[in-house]
């Protein structure tokens, strides 16, 4: 697949897409979609549950429905139309894309298609100055210890309480990142109440992220938090109600509770970095598309299980870092 002839004109910073519950962290997959056509772009996101319009520096017109994405970008020099289909969700995404481009400066149309990896190489050319590294490893997770759910002392309905999410940790990179590698986010994500449990029980988000709290149960929930970074109380609401969305604009640990169901526990970890991921339930993680340099790698499972290690990332290298809980 040929390298884009006009790529040097791009404002080449990679885009890091915020992880969400419906679209788990894809991190540098966003780098693939930086149809960074330079002088102006618009970014339109349409999903089944939200709609957004923004005009960021590296944005574009983007229609995102389920796993399909239609991406349109334009500048003085290029016009691109991209159709992408994602076949997986998770830290690593396998996508198939079809890209139609026209370079006004050179003339002619180009048709590109292929798997994600091909496209990644294609678009990586202009951002070689931010050559990317990766970290993988394993975090020793605490034993599951879900709170006891007691029946109502004085009678009343008891719904079926599902199992709480198994323990997981959030691994994130902190430090001074290269200029242009961090883009302010206004992402929106969801944290559900299902089976009288928070899903996910641990949600990492970037500062500035908007979180909604849909109720998936046939009874009332009342989500609240008295944590210092975010203090709120949504009141009682049921399925199909839309409680006020909350913007998490301060970094820190936000503990979530339900006023009606005392056993429910959730945590939103608000991070001041775009480089983070949630581990699998066996503790394995992988952070891709990281900028090279010296940073601190941190792992947060709960307040008793937080770890950090200094790391030095080199271009095109994958570092292996385990947090063994000691």
């Amino acid at each position, binding site marked *: 697949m040929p390298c884009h002839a006009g790529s040097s004109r791009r404002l080449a910073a990679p885009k890091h897409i915020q992880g969400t519950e419906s679209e788990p962290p894809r991190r540098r997959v966003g780098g693939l979609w930086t149809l960074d056509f330079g002088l102006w772009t618009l970014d339109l996101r349409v999903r089944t549950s939200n709609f957004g319009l923004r005009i960021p520096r590296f944005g574009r017109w983007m229609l995102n429905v389920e796993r399909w994405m239609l991406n349109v970008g334009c500048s003085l020099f290029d016009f691109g139309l991209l159709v992408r289909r994602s076949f997986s969700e998770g830290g690593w995404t396998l996508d198939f894309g079809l890209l139609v481009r026209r370079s006004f400066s050179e003339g002619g149309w180009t048709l590109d298609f292929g798997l994600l990896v091909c496209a990644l190489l294609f678009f990586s050319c202009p951002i070689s100055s931010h050559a990317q590294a990766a970290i993988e490893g394993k975090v020793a997770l605490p034993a599951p210890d879900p*709170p006891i759910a007691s*029946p109502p002392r*004085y009678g009343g309905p008891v719904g079926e309480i599902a199992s709480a999410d198994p323990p997981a940790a959030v691994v994130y990179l902190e430090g001074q990142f290269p200029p242009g590698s961090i883009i302010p986010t206004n992402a929106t994500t969801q944290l559900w109440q299902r089976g009288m449990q928070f899903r996910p029980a641990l949600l990492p988000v970037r500062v500035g992220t908007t979180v909604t709290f849909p109720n998936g149960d046939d009874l009332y929930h009342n989500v609240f938090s008295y944590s210092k970074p975010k203090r709120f109380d949504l009141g009682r609401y049921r399925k199909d109600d839309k409680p006020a969305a909350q913007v998490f604009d301060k970094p820190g640990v936000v*503990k979530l509770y339900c006023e009606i169901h005392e056993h429910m526990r959730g945590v939103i970890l608000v991070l001041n970095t775009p480089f983070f991921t949630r581990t699998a339930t066996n503790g394995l993680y992988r952070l891709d598309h990281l900028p090279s340099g010296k940073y601190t790698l941190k792992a947060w499972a709960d307040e008793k299980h937080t770890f950090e290690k200094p790391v030095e990332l080199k271009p095109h290298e994958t570092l292996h870092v385990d947090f063994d809980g000691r």
Partner: protein
Amino acid sequence: MKRSTWISMAGDRRARKDTNYTNLPEFVSIRVIRVFSLFAVILLSNHCPAQPFLDNLQDNLKLQTKDGFIRSDLTVLLDLEGYYVDQRPPGLLYEDESFINYRASFFIDAHIGPHFYSLIQARVDRGFDPGSQDLDARLDEYLLRWTPTDDSRLNIQFGKFATAVGGWVQRHDSWQNPLITAPLPYENPTIVSYDDVPTSPADFLYRRSYPDDKDSWIPVIWGPVYATGGSIFGSIGKMDYAFEVKNAAISSHPDAWDVDQNYWRYPTFSARIGFRPSPAWNHGLSFSDGAYMTHDAAAQLPAGKNIGDYRQLTLDYDVSYAFRKWELWAELFLNRFQVPNVGDADLGAYYIEAKYKITAGLYAAARWNQEIFGTVHDGSGGWEAWDHDMFRADAALGYRFTRHLQTKLQYSFGHRNGSLQQGEQLVAAQVTAKF
């Protein structure tokens, strides 16, 4: 009176009637206030490690075996209350002047396998109802519940536990009650006595001119009524049901709730049917029928009568609604006391209560209460209202600092017909710690 579970550390309330009990030495109260204040300051400080400590403590008070077959959860409520009254204190406040009250409640919820549950509530306080009396330690509740199925359609329960009647019991503890005091029907003594039989209608009606005799007179329903007995209850779809047999009427004095009281000769039968058309609404219809007098009154009854011949019959409708920041509750009681030598003494009582969350921690609550009394034959050819109609308006502001600390400030204005008033104005403050 036998007191098997009342472990009175300094005599009982009735004995105190004739003594100068202006209470615990003052230094004890001051010490309690100081300790509590220090505790509150620690809890309030966001920079203090007490916050995660109490979070951890609360979780660590939950114990279970490895396989989870046996689990227990200890919850502690610490209350410090202050009451200022401009006259004689209203309701079930047991003091003649402004006073400080404190209370420690310990709840142990235990599970044995998926089908057995037990609850123990032990309290250390200055009397079941607020006052400045000597220290008491009691088991207020203890129960064993068997749930034979995996859902909640059938529960069978024995022990000493709160009544199924009405809609206030579920939120009667200090952490959940938006106000400090109970609704009027749950705490306003009428002139009906459980141990003092009127000799005539005139004798009965003459009580109206006296201040409440809170050691003898009874309200429509005495708080959560932790009487002893058994119950069957459950939920099927949108319907709830409960049926219980207890040893004391819903209006009975706390002394009558213990298992060795009333000898089970005259049990009280109560039932409630609930309907929840949606998560927002909850309707309930309760009925109760029981003998409200104790054996202390038996010797005063007319010849050939026993205390089982004089019943309390109560019909209660409760409704609640919640949406977003609003919660609303209302109850309507229609009550009849069959009074010896007098006849049927009927009354209607209701309250409407609302709570609104202003911010994440701050809320406002208000309650309008009213009791309207029927008439009885006055013994000289006429009919008279057998007690003074009354209304009371309660308003409160509450603030939850954390999941472990909240405070409330309440103002109440009550007025009854006639010249005798009892605590027209009440200001109360309460600090509650929970972990």
